[in-house]
């Protein structure tokens, strides 16, 4: 029972992290109609920036804030130099160009930081376990990820649904040409949305960094997961991304935690320990395949153009 609570919390934490990544992706996709494979690279850059700035300033909080700003700037720069010329192009062109950017970022990181991974040590006040219900302890850092991600999700909701800029974003998602015709500076809006997406990806990366090592290619697996999430949730839908992300996070974590034991009841122990991780990784793709076959537009399709 205790394990179940702990693993569910882990699943929730992973799901929320995935949401941060997927939210940026789905915003950019929904509004600019732009497939950005390099989103995972921004996630990686967020983690590398954080590891560097924390070591540099000696302060965890300051380092993370600097890293967040740096990823935001990098995103805006990337959009300004290269990606804005790809809006309105074929999706395939976008996939190809951003695939090139992945290659570039991976080698750029290898050149600057070297091939070995970095680690981002936590400050002492984040390593203590917290008692959430009597008898159940949970690492403070993972708990803080849940809190921060929920806060960001709430903030995103308020910004998108309750502010003028959010109104423009939603309008842009349903009809780009029209809001341009109404005199909105659509280029600026796009740059802003892209920067926001980059910052969210960076935030996800730097929050994940203390749990895993900061390494080259860390953004690639998780990028595919984020794509699965926005496809399950319906492209352009933040609400869909949120629910799908929690769902995927839970399935992934619980599958990894409980499938090995479950399989051991039917298979030999050795076969189960190889088959289980493979099977739990597959579950998510299976889910996506089923969703797409049953509802080809995802669970919560954004408003039709």
């Amino acid at each position, binding site marked *: 029972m205790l394990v179940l609570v702990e693993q569910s919390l882990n699943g929730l934490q992973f799901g929320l992290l995935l949401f941060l990544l997927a939210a940026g992706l789905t915003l950019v996709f929904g509004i600019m109609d732009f497939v950005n494979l390099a989103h995972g690279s921004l996630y990686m850059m967020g983690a590398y920036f954080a590891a560097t700035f924390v070591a540099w300033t000696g302060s965890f909080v300051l380092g993370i804030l600097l890293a967040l700003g740096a990823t935001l700037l990098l995103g805006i720069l990337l959009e300004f130099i290269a990606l804005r010329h790809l809006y309105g192009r074929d*999706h395939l062109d976008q996939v190809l160009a951003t*695939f*090139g950017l992945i290659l570039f970022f991976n080698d750029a990181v290898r050149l600057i930081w070297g091939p070995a991974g970095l680690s981002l040590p936590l400050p002492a006040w984040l390593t203590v376990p917290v008692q959430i219900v009597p008898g159940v302890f949970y690492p403070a850092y993972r708990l803080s990820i849940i809190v921060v991600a929920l806060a960001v999700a709430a903030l995103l909701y308020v910004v998108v649904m309750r502010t003028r800029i959010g109104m423009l974003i939603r309008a842009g998602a349903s009809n780009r040409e029209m809001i341009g015709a109404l005199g909105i500076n659509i280029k600026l809006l796009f740059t802003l949305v892209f920067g926001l997406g980059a910052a969210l990806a960076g935030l996800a990366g730097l929050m994940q960094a203390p749990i895993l090592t900061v390494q080259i290619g860390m953004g690639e697996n998780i990028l*595919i997961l984020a794509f699965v999430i926005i496809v399950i949730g319906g492209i352009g839908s933040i609400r869909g991304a949120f629910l799908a992300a929690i769902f995927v996070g839970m399935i992934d974590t619980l599958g990894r935690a409980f499938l090995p034991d479950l399989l051991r009841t039917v298979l030999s122990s050795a076969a189960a320990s190889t088959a289980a991780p493979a099977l739990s990784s597959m579950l998510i793709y299976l889910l996506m*395949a089923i969703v797409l076959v049953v509802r*080809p*537009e995802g669970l919560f399709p954004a408003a039709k153009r």
Partner: protein
Amino acid sequence: MKPHINASNVIAALVALCLTLLPLYSAATGNIFILTLFTRIVIFALAAASLNLIMGYGGMMSFGHAAYLGIGGYAVGILAYEGIGSGFIQWPVALAVSALYAFVIGALSLRTRGVYFIMITLAFAQMAYYVTSGLSRYGGDDGLTIYKRSNFAGLIDLSNRVQFYYLCLACLFGGVYLIWRIVNSRFGMVVQGVRSNEQRMQAIGFHANRYRLVCFVISGTICGLAGALLANNTDFISPATMYWTRSGDLMVMVILGGMGSLFGPVIGTIVFLVLEEVLSQFTEYWALIMGPLLLLIVLFAHGGIMGVLGRLSRA
């Protein structure tokens, strides 16, 4: 349909000639490396050509084409591991399994369009990737070493570099010829018609998805053949063969050479892999140049190398 004489066709013929004469050059100069490199290139060119059939002519953007490389390869590897060394069994099995996989995922994926199609093909390829990493009997994540290449009863010796190269080249030329015949057949015309305007084709009485599915299966089967060749070339097969970046590489090769041109993918593959080889000799960080180069190609060279050649020859 008669071939015309224009810049792209002349280049294609020259490239085909050079590929045919390559072993002579290699023997004359004693440069074995170039033969090994080009064996790999020819195999990937076959895979890229098969991808071009559905991407360029069928309008189906598959982001999971590397799965067939893995499936074809594993069919050969697993049969060899179980003691069945005959190529007359291994290769038909590789083709049949690839065709079956293509049929199943095609039937499901073709319900979706556009980006959703890109993503669902990717998802299925990732599933195949994880299935093979879970095969503990066949090495799991670490992959499977193939100790003996496919045995064709003395007809051809796959361990002989030159013979193996010519076998790969014959498969490539055969594949490209097959695709040429398909594209110019009634069937191919329907598939291209569906790409241009699905509704109209439906309205005049064609089952668009049936034609698409058959095209998808043919493409997957050809790529499965490339997988069987690849496994024999490397004497090794691992899940990494079907990792999603490999599917991305295949897409790059097709688009670089020119999507929807018959010989474009072959040239794209040569340029991509040779560039990778040359750049990695200059610097360890070859992707620093390759990445932005891809971006520039997408931004400025529409239609890939063949597209640029076509424009040049008209100008």
